[in-house]
């Protein structure tokens, strides 16, 4: 077992669960920031697992990219838009928080089961890698679907993307760095666009409840 990496992966699942369980928007964003820090440490932990060889520049760039974008830039942006919109809580989520947590637990179980059915083509650095990646993707979907506030939905998208990132880390040694970096940048651009959209929703409707966008007006 690869100790440190397993711990980080377990912590990643717990932070995703926390994002689902909390009703405070700021806490939700901070959970995603914590995920960013974990994702920055994860490549190093995976690399240092066997022996104390210095990490390759590829891994260093990946770690710093995750730190700068996922742990600092995006959460700062989201916290700013929360302040600007003046919304602090998810008041009436689509599914109640109890149901969300139960659903989240069921999704984690499902993810671990699905991951058990998948046979990786080569030896992965950690057994928890694929299950945690799938669990994060599913929990991200849950956040996007079950909440009304635009900020929580963005966090859901981030959690989902973090799952994809973890999945990519398993293939890090087989994958050109350009792909990883372009993914990181795509996310940043995506969140920029969403941040602007959130501001516009809040200016137009005095709140950031996305259900207002579903009804058509003549």
């Amino acid at each position, binding site marked *: *077992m690869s*100790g440190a990496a*397993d*711990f980080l*992966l*377990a*912590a990643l*699942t*717990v932070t995703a*669960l926390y994002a689902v*369980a909390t009703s405070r928007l700021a806490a939700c964003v901070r959970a995603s920031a914590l995920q960013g820090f974990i994702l920055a440490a994860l490549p190093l932990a995976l690399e240092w697992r066997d022996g104390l060889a210095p990490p390759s520049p590829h891994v260093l760039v990946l770690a710093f990219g995750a730190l700068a974008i996922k742990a600092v830039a995006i959460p700062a942006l989201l916290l700013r838009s929360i302040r600007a919109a003046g919304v602090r809580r998810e008041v009436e989520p689509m599914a109640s*928080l*109890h149901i969300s*947590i*139960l659903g*989240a*637990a069921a999704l*984690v*179980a499902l993810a*671990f*089961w699905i*991951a*058990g059915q998948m046979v990786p083509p080569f030896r992965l650095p950690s*057994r*928890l890698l694929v*299950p945690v990646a799938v669990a994060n993707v599913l929990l991200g979907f849950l956040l996007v679907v079950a909440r009304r506030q635009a900020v929580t939905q963005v966090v859901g998208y981030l959690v989902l993307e973090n799952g994809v990132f973890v999945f990519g880390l398993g293939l890090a040694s087989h994958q050109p760095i350009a792909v990883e970096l372009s993914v990181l940048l795509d996310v940043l651009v995506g969140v920029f666009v969403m941040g602007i959209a959130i501001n516009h929703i809040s200016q137009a409707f005095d709140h950031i409840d996305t259900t207002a966008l579903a009804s058509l007006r003549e």
Partner: protein
Amino acid sequence: MRTAVACTWAALLLLALPPLLLGIVVRVKAIAAGRAGAPLLQGYRDLARLLRKTPVYSGTTTWVFRAGPIVALAATAAAGCLLPLGAGAALLAFEGDLVLFAYLLGLGRFAMMSAALDTGSSFEGMGASREAAIGSLGEVAVFLVLVTLVVATGELSLSAIFAGLDAGGGNPALWLAAAALAAVLLAENARIPIDDPTTHLELTMVHEVMALDHSGPDLAFVEYGAAMKLAVTSALLVGLVWPAAARQPIALAGGMIAVAVAIGLVESAMARLRLPRVKQYLIGSAALAGVALAAELVLRGAA
């Protein structure tokens, strides 16, 4: 000879230590709030004083009311006998005793709830109903933690499990299980995020309101039983977090005291949750325990 030593340590940790643990929780809270606080041994004095008093029974109560505190105390002590307390195996160990352990704690809870309902007081009925809700939700988390331990060690007896947890230090699944157990420990022992032991308002009480009509030796049994439950559950937590310590009585006592200090700090830093949030807290800890189980299954390569 070995059993004699084991019995002595178990008796000391299970029978003598509990009031001190509560004293430590109270003292830590007092220091955190800038007060001097009650003496650490106040719990023993309170028990001695209560035991000398004459109990008063309401005319509406039956034997159920009188049996409550006794059954609760006896069930908790029996559950403690199933835990390996310090020296080697537990006083009583057999395959599957962890189910008995969980349900002995449940039996104690049931006895206290029946006694509370027997008084016919509406406050106590409310406390009993809350206790039932908390207990039934907490049980899910407790069982998921126990199943995780069974999967981790391949053993079905608490003594064997804690003997087999040597290599557990670097296992994230066991840390998740420990976190879930710590969350449930606070709920089981009616500590702050769930219940406030110092509140004076009956409407917000859970455990305390069920003890309102008990007096004299009965109240002593209730308080002693609650302290013993704290000792038993914190011994379980210490065994999970630091398996090596659970085999040395002194280290185990130190670990239990550390748990009491941690509870005191949590109580100083947090406020009681609103009742609807309690449900969420308990479901969340069950979800945490579920993740621990799933992670353990994957790490074992069983899934």
